[in-house]
């Protein structure tokens, strides 16, 4: 009897093959659900292929892309989306960090644990459900918010979602309501990454609060915090359900985010070729965003390495 205790199927297979066998299911899953559709989409973006026409795809080269680049509407929707991302993520980060610090400083607050649990609740709701509820809250006839605006300011109850100038901000506010807790939690997690001895040392050393933030908290907290901002940015860029349920892009094009344009192109016009091209375009923008964050995040590390 050999001293080996490995089961027969391990002994029969050479080690590299065994390792491959373990990885294959994940790779297969990834390939079938991610790589193939992506390649399919990239392929489709070079064709004119409209489902409802009953015609086979026609190769058109870069025509879909040139149409997107020349389409004023698409650029307007991308601009609106970027504005939405900057506004939503900016406000969420600001509020999240402030409230995160407040939570962090109050370790003995009664009910802290319960409050933290409740913070999760907006995040676990489906965006469509949140959108639907907020459409009712904003409703000029039955909505509670216009009612109180009417009561407090004596103005007629406003139609917040029906008005081109307030619809965008109303949708943005809903996104802030839904995702600020996420940034609070990320902030608490980030602050948890700061070693306690270091905080105590900085207090004993009589460092001012700005110095503590800069030299003690930021170096340890930045990774988790920037990761939170990154996740929020990518997520905000593809906001769909929330807006779809609240305004469906309207009134006019006031809340027409790129994801809604994409949806219309693909499932209203059934124009799969140009929708694929647009999706690819949006993907590049998201990748660009991500790269910028990662560049900034790694900046200091590279500086140290270059030293």
């Amino acid at each position, binding site marked *: 009897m050999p001293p080996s205790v490995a089961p027969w199927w391990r002994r029969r297979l050479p080690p590299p093959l065994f390792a491959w066998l373990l990885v294959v299911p994940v790779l297969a899953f990834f390939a079938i659900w991610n790589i193939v559709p992506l390649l399919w989409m990239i392929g489709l973006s070079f064709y004119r292929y409209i489902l409802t026409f009953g015609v086979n795809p026609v190769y058109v080269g870069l025509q879909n892309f040139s149409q997107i680049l020349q389409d004023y509407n698409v650029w307007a929707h991308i601009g609106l989306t970027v504005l939405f991302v900057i506004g939503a993520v900016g406000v969420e980060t600001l509020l999240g960090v402030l409230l995160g610090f407040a939570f962090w400083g109050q370790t003995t607050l009664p009910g802290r644990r319960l409050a933290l649990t409740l913070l999760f609740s907006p995040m676990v709701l489906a965006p469509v459900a949140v959108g639907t509820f907020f459409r009712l809250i904003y409703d000029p006839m039955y909505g509670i918010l216009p009612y109180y605006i009417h009561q407090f300011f004596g103005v007629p109850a406003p139609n917040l979602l029906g008005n081109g100038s307030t619809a965008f901000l109303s949708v943005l506010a809903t996104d802030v309501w839904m995702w600020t807790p996420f940034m609070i939690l990320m902030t608490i997690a980030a602050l948890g990454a700061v070693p306690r*001895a270091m905080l105590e040392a900085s*207090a*004993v*050393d009589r460092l001012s609060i700005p110095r503590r933030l800069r*030299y003690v908290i930021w170096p340890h907290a930045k990774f988790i915090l920037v990761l939170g901002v990154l996740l929020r940015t990518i997520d905000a860029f593809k906001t769909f359900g929330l807006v779809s349920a609240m305004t469906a892009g309207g009134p006019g094009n006031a809340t027409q985010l790129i994801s809604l344009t994409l949806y219309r192109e693909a499932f209203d016009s059934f124009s799969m070729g140009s929708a694929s091209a647009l999706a690819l375009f949006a993907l590049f923008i998201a990748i660009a965003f991500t790269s910028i964050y990662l560049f900034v995040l790694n900046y200091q590390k590279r500086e140290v390495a270059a030293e």
Partner: protein
Amino acid sequence: MAGVRLLGLTKRFGAVAAVDNLNVEFPDAQVTCLLGPSGCGKTTLLRMIAGLEQPSGGQIFFDHDEVGEWSASRRNVGMVFQSPVVYPGLTVYDNVALPLRGTLPEAELRQRVGEVLELVELQAVAERKADSLGNAERQKVSVARAVARRPRVLLFDEPVTNIAAGERVTLKRAFKRLTTEVRLTLVYVTHDQTEAMTLADYIAVMRDGKLVQYGPPRSVYRAPRDRFVGWFLGNPGMNFVEIGAPGEDGGSLFSGAGPQLKAPAMVGFRPEYVEVLSDPEPASIEARVMRAPITVGGQHLLTLKAGDTTFKAKTDYRQTYATGQTVYVKIPADQLRWFDPAREELSPPVPGDAE
């Protein structure tokens, strides 16, 4: 610098009193070592002095200021933690200078930081990033940072515990240099008696949240107040032998001792004061060598048995001993300490005692 006075200081965690009604004064410009086994409350005490832990009761004074309600920042203490704390991304120089920025003119700041860096022998790496250094040097950085601020009280919380054994020596040497060249009110927590013995002007021995004994190292070592201190200080600790009625076994070992005992009694003596002879002498008794390993210092650490009494002796490196060998043992009477066997505390000196 300031003296530290503690009045009835208490810290309870639930039902457990980590620090129990402590009354003591650590004098100005002196090094006091808080010594005790793990979990005796010495770190908790230090953290209360620093303002990092809220006392459950009692008062803390720095000179005449009652600081119990003050924040850690307001107390103006310097603290060195068990694991080295350096501010990441800053050079050694900037680490030490950071707390001083804005409080001193640039020229004075540069001079002050330079002096302190020289004191802990860090000038050579002053421009290196502090977090790129090894543990021992990082700990030196945090010591320098604490000292440079000239705080009222310096607090060291087991500063060499997390340092690799080989690097401890350089760190301890730096501390020794620091304490001899700068007069500091330093409270130094350790469970290592060698550290305490070499650095301290005063030793405070703690056990179970209580202060057992306080005094200069030599007197605490020579006259431990109770059996615990005698056992804890010294390597190995004091021998203790209980003596029954006069004439009973064990008594013969100490027959040379002066005091007329009211038996029963407990006698303590340090292994290093036991004289081990190869030939009988007056007042010596016969003993058998049970074990004879060699200590770090190259001495022999004998386990001896005389009658039913087993005790330890530390002897010269020049002699060699074999297990089972017969030797003769003498203990100078002035090195015996008499303890009350019931309370295990040092008996008050009786007339005729060599003390």
